[in-house]
């Protein structure tokens, strides 16, 4: 379940205001805090996640697979909790199922109906793939990676080298032969089916965002509203080489790893800039995984994680894109690095870091989101939750920017 920064009891605070006015005030409140200014009150973000299922009395599977239900529950949650912004599930399974995605498990697909969406790491990229990855990333991605990572795309392994496939009429004669091979045709159909599933999902998301706006509630710009990019190290770990593989690379082949991270940095930046230009929504979400305290030494962090992540974040801000960075886990020993990010240009959403220390070290650098532990929200008494909320608001809210 997601955390939120909660103010004092807000119910009824905006009662009677026309939705357009409430919407504008909420948005203004949020952007004032983003800019490290002091808003009229501390904005409350409510990313609901699987909480909606429990709260709404449906299984997680139903919530994940039934957008109507999800939108209905989101509307109910918005009206009951009156947050300044709200978000529902970040993931819907349609496209992943159409592609035979081996990286994800879904409630009702790979997990029981009450399971929680999860990633499964594999070593789709082997150590011996580094040269091909660095030499021609796109070709390797399409002809080697996709067939390994998605069962329905196995046929793409039968495509000719992509350079061969594209240049001139003769090349198209050659490519035509490959495209008629049944496994290739089948893979292309799977891509088409995934696109169709995504079209349906996107339409429902837009509908949900519109209905929430009509009630006066902005949506939090996290996926699927905003694109995801990752720290290059995490990108290599999460989707390509797995954590075991990547951690061994730190010791066995550091130069290959660094070269691969350069590639990842370059195409992620290009992607985010293009995407935000096309959509006009100048926000990206960056969930961080392996950089938190405990995974690697500070020396390793300084070499393999931080420079590439910082280049990504700074590169985005230089294009007026606002990165919403989710600092998963605990970052207490790494906050000084974060303090070097451009002031007022990024958002820091902290999961389990010491939120008061966060305020102290990066409070002048970025707007802070977080401070409400899931364990407290599930197992704490109402009084404990109120006390913590009050303290977080007083200390972290001091001076704005949260």
């Amino acid at each position, binding site marked *: 379940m997601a955390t939120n920064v909660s103010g004092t009891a807000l119910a009824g605070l905006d009662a009677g205001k026309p939705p357009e006015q409430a919407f504008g005030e909420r948005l203004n409140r949020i952007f004032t805090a983003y800019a490290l200014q002091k808003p009229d009150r501390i904005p409350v973000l409510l990313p609901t996640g699987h909480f909606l299922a429990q709260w709404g009395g449906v299984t997680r599977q139903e919530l994940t697979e039934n957008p109507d239900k999800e939108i209905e529950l989101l509307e109910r949650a918005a009206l009951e909790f009156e947050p300044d912004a709200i978000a529902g599930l970040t993931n819907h399974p349609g496209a992943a199922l159409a592609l035979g995605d081996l990286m994800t498990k879904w409630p009702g697909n790979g*997990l029981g109906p*009450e399971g929680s969406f999860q990633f499964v790491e594999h070593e789709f990229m082997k150590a011996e793939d580094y040269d091909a990855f660095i030499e021609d990333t796109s070709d390797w991605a399409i002809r080697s990676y996709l067939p390994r990572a998605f069962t329905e795309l196995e046929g793409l392994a039968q495509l000719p080298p992509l350079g061969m496939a594209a240049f001139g009429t003769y090349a198209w004669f050659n490519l035509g032969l490959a495209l008629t091979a049944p496994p290739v045709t089948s893979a292309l159909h799977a891509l088409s089916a995934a696109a169709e599933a995504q079209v349906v999902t996107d339409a429902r998301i837009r509908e949900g965002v519109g209905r929430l706006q009509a009630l006066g509630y902005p949506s939090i710009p996290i996926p699927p509203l905003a694109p995801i990019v990752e720290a290059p190290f995490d990108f290599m770990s999460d989707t390509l080489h797995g954590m075991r593989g990547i951690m061994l690379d730190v*010791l066995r082949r550091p130069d290959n790893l660094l070269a691969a991270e350069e590639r990842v940095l370059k195409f992620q930046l290009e992607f985010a800039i293009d995407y935000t230009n096309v959509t006009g929504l100048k926000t990206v979400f960056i969930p961080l995984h392996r950089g938190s305290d405990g995974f690697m030494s500070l020396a*390793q962090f300084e070499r393999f994680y931080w420079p590439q992540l910082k280049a990504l974040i700074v590169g985005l801000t230089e294009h007026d894109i606002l990165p919403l960075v989710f600092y998963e886990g605990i970052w207490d020993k790494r906050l000084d690095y974060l303090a070097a990010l451009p002031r007022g240009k990024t958002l820091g959403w902290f999961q389990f870091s010491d939120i008061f220390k966060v305020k102290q070290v990066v409070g002048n650098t970025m707007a802070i989101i977080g401070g409400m532990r899931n364990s407290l929200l*599930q197992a704490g008494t109402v009084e404990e939750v109120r006390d913590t909320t009050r303290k977080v608001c007083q200390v972290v809210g001091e001076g704005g920017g949260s």
Partner: protein
Amino acid sequence: MTQALVDAIADMREEEALNLARTALDGGTPPLEVLDDCRQAMSLVGERFAAGECFVPELIMAGEMLREISALVKPLLAGSAEAGAPKLGKIVMGTVQGDIHDIGKDIVYFMLDVNGFAVTDLGVDVPIETFVEKVREIQPDVVALSGFLTLSYDSMKNTIQALVEAGLRDRVKVMIGGGAVDEQIRAFAGADAYGADAMAAVALAKTWTEAS
């Protein structure tokens, strides 16, 4: 003991460690002696991890070297029973139902193992009944429950409740841990202790097995 082999492993010099192991075995060093060096090196890596001098890459690499050297030793071991050191106590562990995260669990396994416990790892997304069956069968001193997701709170609670209902709860100590777990969840789930990291898990297990 070959200090050079112990050092090569502990200092993450993989190629050198493998060469030293190979040379030792070719030269007639008893295979059990080589394994013993590995065990010592693992224990050294565990100490360094506990002291914050090495991290996950080194733990994984140490495990990898142990696997590689064991593969060299194994064919030579036929007939001679492995003389395992006496274990401090038995532990059954796993990631609770609905949760498939294994990184933290594997680190805790490594640290309990190198510290001399006989650990049975039931894997991830472990059904409540499996915990009950295995506790009945293995009769461990300690049950260790891992979880990363918020849903693990309920799974931990239900697993411990199932141990109560099976009449097994008072025969074991239960510890819980994982990214989103804390003291509040310990009370919520009815565990005996919460550990913030793998070193805490070792300390708890030692306290409990020494006391019994």
